[in-house]
């Protein structure tokens, strides 16, 4: 299965890229997506979205999902 992994703001800068595409053999959680794609420890307070909705690290990911990692937001 194929998963699009996106990074924003300081996470994007930390990793030096704004996305990865994962080809995974079996079902993964968000935590496993991070580990496999980023290959480093996630900064404290990193937030997670799955398919443009806020989610959590234990969420199971399906084929075609988009997973995003980003720091606490500062809009408005």
């Amino acid at each position: 299965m194929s998963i699009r992994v996106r990074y924003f703001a300081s996470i994007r800068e930390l990793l030096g890229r704004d996305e990865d595409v994962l080809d995974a053999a079996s079902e993964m959680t968000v935590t496993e997506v991070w580990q496999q794609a980023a290959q480093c420890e996630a900064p404290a307070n990193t937030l997670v979205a799955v398919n443009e909705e806020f989610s959590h690290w234990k969420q199971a990911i399906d084929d075609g999902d988009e997973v995003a990692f980003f720091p606490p937001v500062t809009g408005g």
Partner: protein
Amino acid sequence: MVIVSNETFQPWQVLADYERERVGLGGQYGATAVFVGTMRSLNQGHTVEAMTLEHYPGMTEKYLARVCEEAAGKWEVMDCFVRHRYGRILPDESIVLIATWSQHRKQALAACQYIIDELKIRAPFWKQEVTDRGHSWVSPE
């Protein structure tokens, strides 16, 4: 209506245009509450020359539309409007505009406050300031 755009906007002109083009609400609402967030040239004691506002296209619009729906469900508001900038922003430029229309003032004020609070807490925007000390990500409140 939710608009996320990198274009500068003049909030009062946006509201005048929006109300003029909207049909069917004239004489029905008794209260409008508005919040405008504007870029300051000074933040926590240092001069800010410019700001870059990054966002998550798609998620931002979806999230803001959901917050407007939530506000309309919690309070009797007839309409909500949110406009938010992204990209490079200069001091004195508007960052965000929120407006709510209701029959009654408490509803309009509460809904407007709710939308800006939720936006601040959860909408996927990230500010980076350009100061004389270089670029730096703004810390959350």
